[in-house]
């Protein structure tokens, strides 16, 4: 890709816009979530939360401080939270007293491994299906597979997980769990990743999107032109038919996948953010929960943004689309 000055400017403008709206969304989300905590019934929630932001080693909190915190109005409370969190202090967890940020970051990374492998597997296993469907070999088989994977995604995820474990244990006497957190190996990935890509609809999504987009693009005039000159169709279909829908898919689906990991991680004992979220909900550990929500939001936003970045870079028209 050759970037020349006249293209750099609109691209950077488009990227700046995307970045700006990402930041805006994160702030707005944090405010929304914070106000939810603020209006929550029961006075202790907010207090606990703001207390957890106080530096824990040196200062002692006296009653006057407590009073102040209880009296703080929403903007004040939010500002104090914001200034703390921008400095990297998301408070400490109520249940175990550990700093929120450390816990959340590491676990988010673990979850990301899971999500990325699920996307990858979904992608890899959808390619042969898409190829089958696009080339129109065996239309009935394609339809059958299509229906099956669709039905799989409609089953309750946790039930499917249990079924998968049941099949793998009673049928193959095989039971990998995320047991060795310290040295994760591939065997632990298999079941959760299969579940996440087949059960949560990732595969169906990728398949349907790619299928319809490729079919649409194949009907474009420029593909006919490429055919007429004897060029490889794949190369010409790739950008509009495969890369763009995939980027779009990733930005749309990643949040949903984070949701699905809450269940998958529970079942496969995966040390990730999903399990933490559930635990925090059970303990009403508001600092932890809020930290987790904000960090996941940032991760998802980053994924969106990088998808947009790639889109803008590989699509010379993107910056023009922005202007319209």
């Amino acid at each position: 890709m050759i970037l020349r000055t006249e293209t750099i400017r609109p691209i950077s403008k488009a990227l700046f816009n995307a970045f700006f709206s990402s930041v805006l969304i994160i702030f707005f989300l944090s405010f929304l979530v914070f106000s939810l905590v603020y209006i929550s019934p029961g006075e202790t929630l907010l207090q606990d939360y703001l207390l957890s932001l106080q530096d824990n080693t040196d200062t002692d909190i006296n009653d006057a401080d407590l009073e102040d915190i209880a009296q703080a109005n929403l903007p004040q409370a939010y500002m104090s939270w914001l200034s703390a969190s921008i400095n990297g202090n998301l408070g400490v967890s109520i249940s175990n007293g550990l700093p929120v940020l450390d816990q959340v970051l590491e676990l988010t990374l673990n979850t990301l491994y899971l999500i990325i492998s699920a996307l990858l597997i979904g992608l890899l296993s959808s390619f042969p299906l898409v190829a089958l469907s696009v080339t129109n070999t065996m239309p009935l088989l394609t339809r059958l597979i299509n229906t099956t994977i669709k039905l799989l995604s409609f089953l309750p995820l946790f039930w499917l997980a249990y079924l998968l474990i049941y099949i793998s244990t009673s049928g193959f006497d095989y039971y990998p769990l995320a047991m060795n957190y310290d040295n994760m190996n591939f065997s632990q990935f298999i079941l959760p990743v299969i579940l996440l890509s087949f059960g949560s609809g990732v595969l169906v999504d990728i398949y349907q999107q790619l299928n319809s987009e490729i079919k649409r693009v194949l009907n474009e005039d420029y593909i006919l032109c490429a055919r007429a000159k004897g060029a490889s169709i794949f190369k010409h279909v790739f950008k509009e038919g495969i890369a763009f829908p995939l980027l779009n898919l990733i930005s749309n689906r990643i949040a949903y996948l984070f949701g699905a990991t809450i269940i998958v991680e529970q079942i496969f004992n995966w040390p990730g953010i999903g399990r933490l979220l559930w635990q925090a909900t059970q303990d009403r550990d508001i600092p932890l929960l809020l930290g987790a929500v904000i960090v996941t939001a940032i991760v998802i936003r980053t994924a969106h943004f990088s998808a947009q970045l790639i889109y803008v870079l590989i699509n010379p028209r993107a910056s023009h689309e922005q202007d319209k």
Partner: protein
Amino acid sequence: MKRISLTAVMFLSLWSVMTVSATTNTNTLIYGETKRPDTLDPYTSNEPSSLRLSQLMFNGLVAINERQEIEPDLASSWTVSKNQKIFTFQLRKNVTWHPYKNRREAFSAKDVIYTVKLLQHPKTVSARKDQFANIFKVEQIDDYQVRFTLKNPAINPIAIFNFKVLPYHVLKNRPYLNKKNQFANHPIGTGPYIFKRSNTNRQITLIANDTYYKGKPHIAKIILKPFSDNNIMNQALSFNNLDMIVSVSPRHLSELQADARFTLKAYNTLSYSFFAYNQNNVNLRKKAVRKAISHAINREEMLKAFFNNQGTIISGPFAPGSWAYNLDVLPDNYDPQKSIALLKSLGYKKTTNGFIDSTGKLLAFRLRVPIEKNNEAAKRVILAYKNFLKDIGIRVNIDFMEREKWKRAIFKDHIFDITYAQWSFDDSSDISTLFHSQYNMAWGNNFISYSNPQVDRLIKQSLSSTDHQEKRTINHRLHKIIADEVPYTFLWSLTQYAAYSKRLSNVRIHPYQFFDNVHLWKKN
């Protein structure tokens, strides 16, 4: 296209080939808990998993053995004054703390004194502060001798002196202890195992303490793995991912019993389950109503259907294994006709919808219980309870609440009619906080607002009495009165089971200090 699908197939097969079987280290004990431990020190958390973990790393001055006798632990011997108020402890000299900043400090009297001071500090947050409330003062006689002076005489000194001792040299910077203290997540103790590390998901690794004063433990490493799903934990055990489950869910008992690879071992935690009735409710204030409810539920059948008969039905407020339990009092039998008769005699009228009181209002109660995902046994009991009451014509509305909210509603605000809960006891069999009217307050244990002058008097007598036999008779009377009064419907004391792989040998599970003999356990 073809090339891509080919690579996909290759990648997938590669993926499945790279399945490496999980290797379990030969001399490592991995045990599973359903709730991940909050903090790791013995005081700031009240979760059973945290407490069990602290037994591996800390010692008290004295300990209780399986026969409920006092044993020396960190204190090698002690003397008691005549009025049972002054205790002088001779401490062991060969005890060292786990390494802290690469140094092993010796255990001495100042650690004991500092622990008491720390726990008595008003800012210290701990569920076990009660234990220290009776201590008037602690003095250091010399490096290895401490003298305790109590406010009131104690019959059962264990209740006080089995507290876990904390290191002075680690904690000296702050006068109080809470969860934010670094110590809470990096504990230093004197026990058989040394804290190695904890990852963010609370998988905790402990290694053997070579210089443990009772001798070096046989098992080199202990790992705690928290699980979020009971069924999965059970699967992990049967597929050798775990060596031990601390508490087996009732629905897996029969399965594990049939499996020759595992040993099931019962241990009693001195606890029982009950339904509690709020005395502030107009209807429940009447003894006959409570009695009627107690007669309406079939405890034998529930115990059989839900828990494979693994427990004992109880009749009174003491744990069945304790000396205070009065075996002469029999539990209320299942007799729905009697219940109906009792209710009718109180003037309630039976209609097709159920009983109505004199004003024509339906007899209905609100049962508030916490949501506990992994405790489905509790759910069964509650639902069966509801059905039994429905059969005689009392309506129960179940209100599932989040645990923290439930605690608030029950213990602080007392907004409930009926609740289902469980008490666990230490050996003192002290029920004063449960039924004495003095404890009827926010966050008090007498959350049902029970008040009976006779019970109050007996509790006082029992506390001030110094003679064990006398105390016993008083408690037996107390048992009888409370059993008759039915402030709770006492259900049963469930036998808890631990399941462990036959690779472990020499396992002796202490009834209420689970890991007390852990240094003797072996793994082949």
